């Protein structure tokens, strides 16, 4: 038996039967709703505890509801979803696991910090192309208040935040993807395929400042972009847009520099979800961050842009900073990672 290799180069994969994007949903908090993408989100929380007793419970509820909502929007029954892949920022990824408790979908919990969205898309893509699953829900969530109390300071502590910091997005985004033969008429999207992806490597250039995550993650993003182009034998011109997850303003600036050093010029072709989700006057310093940042931006904005033929092919890479409060206190530097997926417009059968 001849096996067709889907492996491409050191880090990349190319799908022989590219999975299709079927549906998506996004839920955000009220601060995100005041941003430029405000009107595109499916559900907005007026109160960020969402009627729950704790913020952790609210985040888990967002995670769960985003999956249900994505399924509902395309009239997909939850039983048709073969696998749920996702994660969040909290210890032991409790938001995801507690949501999976009620969803009853076979579940893989992932921790990739803010890179979780592309990590789940990439693994789901491989599961589907490999024929192991036919439809998968990829979800990621984050919540400003849960992240602050776990990683930073109490909300009411009167301290100042440095200008390099980013605000954790309160939001959950879900993207449902599946084998092309499962595509039906009522689905939200009918012409987006995930054609390839690149598995990120940990890159750590020794940044220790946990309030400067953009700079800590930018080297990983640059590494994945250049590995992807090399593996795929492509150039930046083969893409309409290269979207990073949450590098923020300063991280994006460092990404340009790092790419230039590798002789890759992405200026004019780059967008960052962290820069896109808030307006400049929202007092968020360098922009947004968190798993939810790239998840809700992809789910509410970029998928629609591809479906509507604004873009034909984008490289989407969410970036993660894989430190913990303990490692920060121990003076360890921040390991960064970025996983990439290629999303293309190509019509349903």
């Amino acid at each position, binding site marked *: 038996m001849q096996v067709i290799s889907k492996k491409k180069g050191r880090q990349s994969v190319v799908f022989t039967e590219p999975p299709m994007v079927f549906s998506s949903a996004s839920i955000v908090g009220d601060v995100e709703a005041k941003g430029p993408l405000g009107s595109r989100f499916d559900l907005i929380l007026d109160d960020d505890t969402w009627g729950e*007793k*704790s913020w952790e419970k609210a985040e888990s509820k967002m995670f769960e509801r985003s999956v249900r909502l994505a399924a509902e929007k395309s009239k997909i029954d939850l039983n048709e979803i073969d696998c749920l892949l996702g994660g969040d920022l909290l210890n032991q990824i409790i938001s995801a696991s507690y949501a999976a408790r009620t969803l009853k979908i076979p579940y893989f919990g992932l921790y990739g910090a803010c890179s979780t969205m592309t990590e789940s898309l990439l693994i789901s893509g491989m599961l589907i192309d490999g024929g192991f699953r036919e439809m998968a829900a990829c979800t990621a969530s984050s919540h400003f208040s849960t992240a602050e*109390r776990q990683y930073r*300071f*109490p*909300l*009411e*502590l*009167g*301290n*100042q*935040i*440095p*200008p*390099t910091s980013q605000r954790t997005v309160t939001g959950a985004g879900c993207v449902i993807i599946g084998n092309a033969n499962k595509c039906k008429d009522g689905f939200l999207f009918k012409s987006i395929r995930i054609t390839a992806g690149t598995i990120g490597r940990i890159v750590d*250039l*020794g*940044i220790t400042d946990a309030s*400067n995550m953009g*700079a800590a993650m930018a*080297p990983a993003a640059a590494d994945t972009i250049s590995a992807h182009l090399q593996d795929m034998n492509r150039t930046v011109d083969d893409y309409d847009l290269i979207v990073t997850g949450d590098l923020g*303003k*300063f991280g994006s*600036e*460092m990404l340009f*520099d*790092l790419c230039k050093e590798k002789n890759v010029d992405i200026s004019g072709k780059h967008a960052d979800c962290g820069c896109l989700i808030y307006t400049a006057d929202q007092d968020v*310093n*360098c922009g947004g961050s968190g798993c939810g940042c790239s998840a809700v931006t992809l789910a509410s904005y970029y998928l629609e842009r591809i479906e509507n033929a604004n873009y034909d092919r984008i490289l989407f890479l969410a970036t993660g900073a894989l430190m913990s409060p303990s490692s920060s206190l121990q003076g360890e530097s921040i390991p960064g990672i970025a996983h990439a997926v290629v999303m293309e417009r190509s019509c349903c059968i």
Partner: protein
Amino acid sequence: MEHQERKKKEYQDKVKKKMPKSNTFMECVRAFLVGGLICCFGHFISDLGRLWLRLDIEDSALFTSIVLVFLAALLTGIGVYDKIGKFAGAGSIVPITGFSNSIVSPAMEFKREGYVQGVGVKLFTIAGPVLVYGISTSIVVGIITFLFFR
């Protein structure tokens, strides 16, 4: 390996050079104004203590601390102190009001984890180290005084 280390160093230097920075001078001005005002308010309270309650100097200082701690705990509770802190920085951290804020803010956030393991424990996340180092140093100073100056 050496190349890798050099690359890291170069990147860190570049980040340090290019990253957006806050205006230290203006931060100091704001810290000075707010810190000075809090102290003046404290002095006013101690004047009142001496005038109305006929307290001596040491008791009026204690009275001032108690009033300021109370007010800061209240302002933290109603969500005002973090806004003052954002403006004033050290101006509202260094005074005893900042100590009060650092006691209340973690404690109130961990109510959902229970009154003993949540509030009770978190009350001392910042106050704990302050008391440990303050009291220990005072004992060292006391012992030195006992040994050499008595």
